[in-house]
């Protein structure tokens, strides 16, 4: 996949969740550009949480403070909102977050058996992270890929239909780095960035950028 910014390349180089810290200098610029897209600043709260998660693998306390500062709200409002959402992690998680769907369609295709196999393979129960911070296992609600049941996601990328053998192979491939092109570090939601200059608000820029430069894959 071709990415459309050096920033994304830098984020994709991260191969472990960080212990803490705030936004990078470039990340702060991205944050400001994201805020500018919305009529009201606070709307950027969730996108900024994703941005923080893309840099660190989780939403660090420093990032919460910085997001609050950028949006003019209290840190409690940021963490209060973020804690509502399943995808936003306020504590460190593994390099790979594996979410096994067990909802109705996947359950009818053997999802609980898959989850059991996953727990056994990784030596952790659903909801836990292994000791070297490599894998976090989650039991997920319907992920919207029921035609490939039972399905799972690794860092929000889909795999399915799965069984215990293909799960073992998946873990081997993740550990060897064979899937680096498919599965980005945890928290990186989109490897394609919006070209921020493209808005109707800027009278000169709209339409000026060649579509070839505009982040195609």
């Amino acid at each position, binding site marked *: 996949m071709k990415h*459309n910014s050096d920033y994304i390349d830098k984020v994709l180089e991260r191969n472990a969740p960080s212990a803490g810290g705030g936004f990078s200098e470039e990340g702060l610029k991205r944050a400001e550009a994201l805020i500018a*897209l919305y*009529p009201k600043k*606070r*709307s*950027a*709260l*969730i*996108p900024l*949480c*994703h941005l923080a998660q893309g840099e660190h693998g989780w939403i660090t306390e420093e990032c919460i403070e910085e997001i609050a500062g950028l*949006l003019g*709200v209290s840190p409690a409002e940021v963490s209060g*909102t*973020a804690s*509502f*959402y*399943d*995808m*936003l992690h306020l504590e460190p998680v593994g390099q790979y977050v594996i979410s096994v769907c*067990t*909802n*109705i*369609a996947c*359950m*009818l295709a053997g999802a*609980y058996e898959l*989850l*059991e196999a996953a727990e056994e393979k990784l030596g952790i129960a*659903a*909801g836990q992270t292994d000791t070297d911070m490599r894998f976090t296992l989650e*039991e997920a*609600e*319907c992920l*919207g*890929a*029921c*035609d490939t*049941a039972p399905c799972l996601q690794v*860092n*929000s*990328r*889909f795999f399915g239909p799965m069984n215990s053998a293909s799960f073992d192979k998946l873990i081997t491939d993740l550990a060897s780095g064979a899937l680096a092109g498919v599965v980005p570090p945890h928290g990186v*939601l*989109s*490897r*394609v960035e*919006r*070209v921020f200059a*493209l*808005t*109707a608000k800027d009278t000169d820029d*709209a*339409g000026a*950028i060649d*579509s070839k430069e*505009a*982040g*195609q*894959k």
Partner: protein
Amino acid sequence: MLNEPIVTKRVELDDSHTLQRYLATGGYEGLKKALSMTREQVREEVTKASLLGRGGAGFPAGRKWSMLRQAPVSYLVVNGDESEPATFKDHLLVERDPHQLIEGTVIAAYALGVTQAFIFIRGEFALGIERLTAACNEAYGHNAVGKNIFGSDFSVDLVIHPGAGAYICGEETSLIESLEGNRGFPRIKPPFFPAVTGLYGEPTVVNNVETMSNLPWIVLNGGDAFAALGQGSSAGTRLFALSGRVKNPGWYELEMSKTTFRDLIYDKNLGGGIIGDKKIKAFIPGGVSAPWFFEEHLDLGLDQDAVAKAGSMLGSGSVVVMDETTCPVRASWRITRFFHRESCGQCTPCREGSGWLEKIMRRIEEGSGRPEDLDLLMDVCDSIAPGVTWPPQQTTICVLGPSIPSSIASAIRHCRDEFLEHITLGHCPYEKDHILTGAAR
């Protein structure tokens, strides 16, 4: 069964998500035509098309728009927070044809006179978000979004907004709260529609991804051509998502009303029948919020009114098939567990009720149930949705609460003996050695 698909004509091409392929297959022609028409004319075509909202409630898009004629609309928000279990049609449309969604969104923005639109995409659809973001960049570059679109005096900005994992954000007022940077708490009604008070307190239209994706075709071919497909109020085609114990799970774009559930499940070109040619026990006609259907409902058409009349809903168009080996207690327990996990927690009947229902269901499935549990379950359901009727009454702010009893009441009413068998036997008769893993332990 369908001469020409409307929303899925490109999805099987490898490069269906690129601008190049989109333009080579008639892309953005609908938008060009729309811009040559007046806003009223575009709205008129959509009203004539009798396009029912494809999100789940099935509200006519044209009527939703016409509620706004008095006041100017401030914002258009496209709901791509597809999270109803067993639904995966918007996932397909976002990932495989993002330009079609953008074109439909810009057409709607033009028809409504909106200069700021948002497409809210479920966070889990990361590849979809990547492709839609790339498509959005391309569309700006192609002048299909942005300033003076295709040389007209119409300008609109489009923001792709990622969700972060919460089923409730599919509820439109909750989605708006989330888009404002808050927890996804549905708003108290009235006002019933964001058309009155929506994003930032201003008039807002919220439409589903599939609804938007139909607009380029409707504008190009006319509302009458769309209304000629299907039957009565169920016009056009619809994307059905089939899953569960069938041989060919997948998405099927079908003319509404003309196909029956039996065709969808058994036709060799569609579902292909039940795995192992077993008998059908039950099926869910429109997402897990819908009451279950049984063998006697197989010959109903995929028609919004017919399904409603028979006591359920076509909802999000997702059909889940359970065969004779499916334990109805376990299936309804899993659905109840979902609602318990996804209840936003604002209203007591939903927050507490879903938890107690889940616990009682689990103890029955695990063999520790009591005969009086069946009445207890119905009593708790009655506290959330008085009378446990369909369509339901509700004691909660939004419809998540009254959706909880659907599967429980269906299972108890139709499979009562199997519930009692669990209780008498002291274990699940289907899978003796089965363990409920995950949070159930």
